[in-house]
């Protein structure tokens, strides 16, 4: 056997181990099984997602009237901790959980690359998340007042970033290096492709976040000889992470999920696959935002490159929407919740990039306040949450071997559509208040709508979690519960056994299962 660092799945046990809670927990803590790790990522992320959107709802509600629902310090913590938390504790880990579970199956691998590193990444993330939450709770968030708590909070952010980068390395390496023979990159499933490009962008930009936080920490720790560690300046140095173009980077894997779902549920091969790859890749490249740090260059938003990227990123979204529309037209429209969630994700993302394009139009004066940016952030993350929920609903039968409650998924379509639109659009509208005076009078109503939207997004995260849990009572499913599976993950039993696959035939097209079903149709 060749010596590599990716051995067959390691773990202290499998499904036949003693079914006591303690034994199961010990098994989970020691496992390198990508399936267990992936589900753990997803469950934790959704739990944090419920909390994160509730925090955002409280922050929005505080905008009503004089803003005295909570104290100024608490409002600052709700905003900074809520925004960073939604990125580092919810969206990125949710996509990583799906990638850890699904990508090895999609590429025909028997495990994720570096299983022990993947396990270490998960538990380091859980630990760092706990520290981050506690630090924020005791006024140790970004710009907080308790010095030691702030130090711990900053270290927690560094820990979160490293853990997420490690997990990203595992997922991306799996997609690049463990593909089964015949599965070249131009035949890779869309989610695997999106994991590669999205993961690459995260690996280029999250380290810059680490650099910022490290500088803040050193300055804060040694008595603030410069401005970096000054409480009022801390968030200004990190705000680029939740602003455009960087915020789009967190939605990249969602584009792959939607592409896979549309093709499979439409029951046809995706036409013009190259355009979909280009669209996802172009979107990812245009989402690199580590260079656009207003704190260090306050005129960056006036730069032609910044404006150009804001306009250009609309094109890949339109391209992808056209490709998905073409596929749906060629196939059949299925009333399944993953498709509904995918479509609303695309819609919310389109709204977000259009909002982003408007942002750079100087005469509109949208950069005078932070409200517009907060609205755009909510739209992007609402889109990402919808795409991730679509992925959970789509792959839940594969993960558990049982049907998920599609009714919950369909309800979630309405909840996430309403939540994403209400959380983001009112704040986007309020951003025009500096230009159009009359809007100030409607500010309270708009803040209330935004709070309702954020609460709906919290409900959406909860519904996704419940749908996953509901598979415990669903009917057993076959390897391909949709009946129209195209990619390799639908070739193994549900749930996949240890090692995932037996012997795989050489892949000869992007849709190997369709080739096996009808060799005459093979591309």
């Amino acid at each position, binding site marked *: 056997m*060749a*010596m*590599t*660092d*990716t051995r067959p799945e390691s773990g202290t046990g499998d499904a036949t181990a003693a079914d006591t809670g303690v034994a199961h927990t010990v098994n989970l803590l020691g496992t390198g099984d990508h399936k267990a790790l992936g589900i753990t990522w997803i469950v934790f992320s959704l739990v944090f997602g419920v909390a994160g959107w509730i925090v955002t709802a409280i922050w929005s509600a505080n905008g009503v009237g004089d803003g005295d629902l909570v104290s100024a310090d608490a409002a600052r913590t709700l905003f900074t901790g809520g925004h960073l938390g939604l990125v580092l504790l919810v969206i990125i880990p949710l996509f990583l959980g799906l990638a850890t579970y699904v990508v090895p199956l999609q590429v025909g691998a028997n495990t994720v*690359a*570096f299983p022990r590193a993947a396990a270490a990444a998960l538990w380091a993330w859980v630990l760092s998340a706990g520290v981050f939450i506690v630090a924020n709770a005791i006024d140790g968030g970004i710009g907080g007042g308790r010095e030691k708590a702030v130090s711990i909070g900053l270290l927690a952010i560094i820990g979160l970033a490293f853990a997420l*980068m490690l997990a*990203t*390395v*595992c997922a*991306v*390496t799996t997609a*690049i*290096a*463990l*593909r089964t*023979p*015949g599965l*070249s990159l131009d035949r890779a499933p869309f989610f695997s492709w999106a994991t590669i490009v999205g993961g*690459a962008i995260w*690996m*280029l*930009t*999250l*380290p*810059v976040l*680490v*650099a*910022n936080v*490290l*500088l803040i920490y*050193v*300055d804060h720790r*040694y*008595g603030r*000889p*410069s*401005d*970096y560690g000054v409480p009022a300046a801390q968030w200004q140095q990190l705000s680029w992470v939740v602003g455009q173009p960087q915020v789009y980077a967190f939605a990249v894997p969602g584009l792959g999920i939607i592409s896979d779902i549309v093709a499979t549920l439409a029951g046809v091969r995706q036409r013009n696959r190259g355009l979909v790859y280009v669209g996802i890749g172009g979107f990812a490249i245009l989402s690199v935002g*580590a*260079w656009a740090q207003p704190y*260090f*260059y306050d005129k960056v938003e006036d730069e032609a490159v910044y404006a150009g990227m804001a306009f250009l990123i609309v094109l890949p979204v339109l391209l992808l929407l056209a490709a998905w529309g073409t596929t749906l037209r060629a196939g059949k429209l299925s009333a399944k919740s993953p498709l509904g969630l995918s479509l609303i994700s695309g819609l919310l993302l389109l709204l977000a990039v259009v909002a982003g394009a408007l942002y750079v139009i100087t005469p509109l004066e949208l950069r005078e306040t932070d409200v517009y940016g907060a609205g755009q952030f909510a739209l992007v993350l609402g889109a990402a949450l919808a795409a991730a929920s679509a992925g959970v609903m789509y792959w839940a039968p594969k993960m558990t071997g049982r049907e998920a409650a599609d009714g919950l998924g369909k309800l979630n379509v309405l909840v996430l559509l309403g939540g994403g639109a209400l959380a983001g659009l009112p704040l986007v509208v309020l951003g025009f208040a500096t230009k159009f005076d009359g809007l100030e009078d409607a500010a309270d109503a708009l803040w209330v709508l935004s709070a309702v939207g954020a609460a709906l997004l919290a409900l959406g995260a909860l519904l996704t979690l419940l749908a996953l849990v509901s598979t415990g009572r669903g009917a057993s499913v076959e390897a391909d519960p949709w009946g129209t599976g195209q990619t390799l993950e639908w070739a193994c039993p549900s749930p996949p056994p240890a090692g995932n696959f037996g012997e795989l035939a050489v892949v000869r097209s992007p849709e190997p299962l369709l080739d096996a079903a009808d060799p005459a149709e093979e591309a």
Partner: protein
Amino acid sequence: MAATHALPPAPPLQRPRVLVVGSAFASAAAVMIFVGLIGIYLAERANAIAAGEKWLPSEISIPLQQPNTILFTLLMSVVTMAWAVQAVANNDKVNSYLALGVTAVFGFSTIVMTTYLWSLMGADVAANTQSVLLYTITGAHMVMTILAIIFVGLMAFRALAGGFSARQHDGITAAALFWYAMVAVYALIWITIYVTK
């Protein structure tokens, strides 16, 4: 009359080496940390000079001997690291251990020289922005150097245990990749901080 040709079967698909791919991504991420830090350093320096101020305060004095020594030591370590990879590829165990050992010694001497340089610079981390930046960047590079030494050490132990061969030496290649990234980062620090000042 048309002729048909019996072509030989296609060779099996070559899969990229797992550890090398992972190490490449990890190295890229590490480099990006320093791109961010040095970018901030250069931006602050440019702002200070544009405002008509002197960038480095008078109490900070960065000699060139020590940074140059570190640079040349690391450049030599690039050679020894390449020597290690080549030796493993040739199944030459003695040269492998020698090269890996010398590389680690070069790395260790870099750490020693960096701490000596800190004592000579006269910079107090609690005094000004410039010191904060200097210590953050050079300190982070020292951490990267330590990690690179640990990586090389681990791969040396695996080589000792017979884990590598001429056909399969991904571990040494991965360690070399990270080492080269560490040296490249130092070259960037050398030119932007120690030389440009």
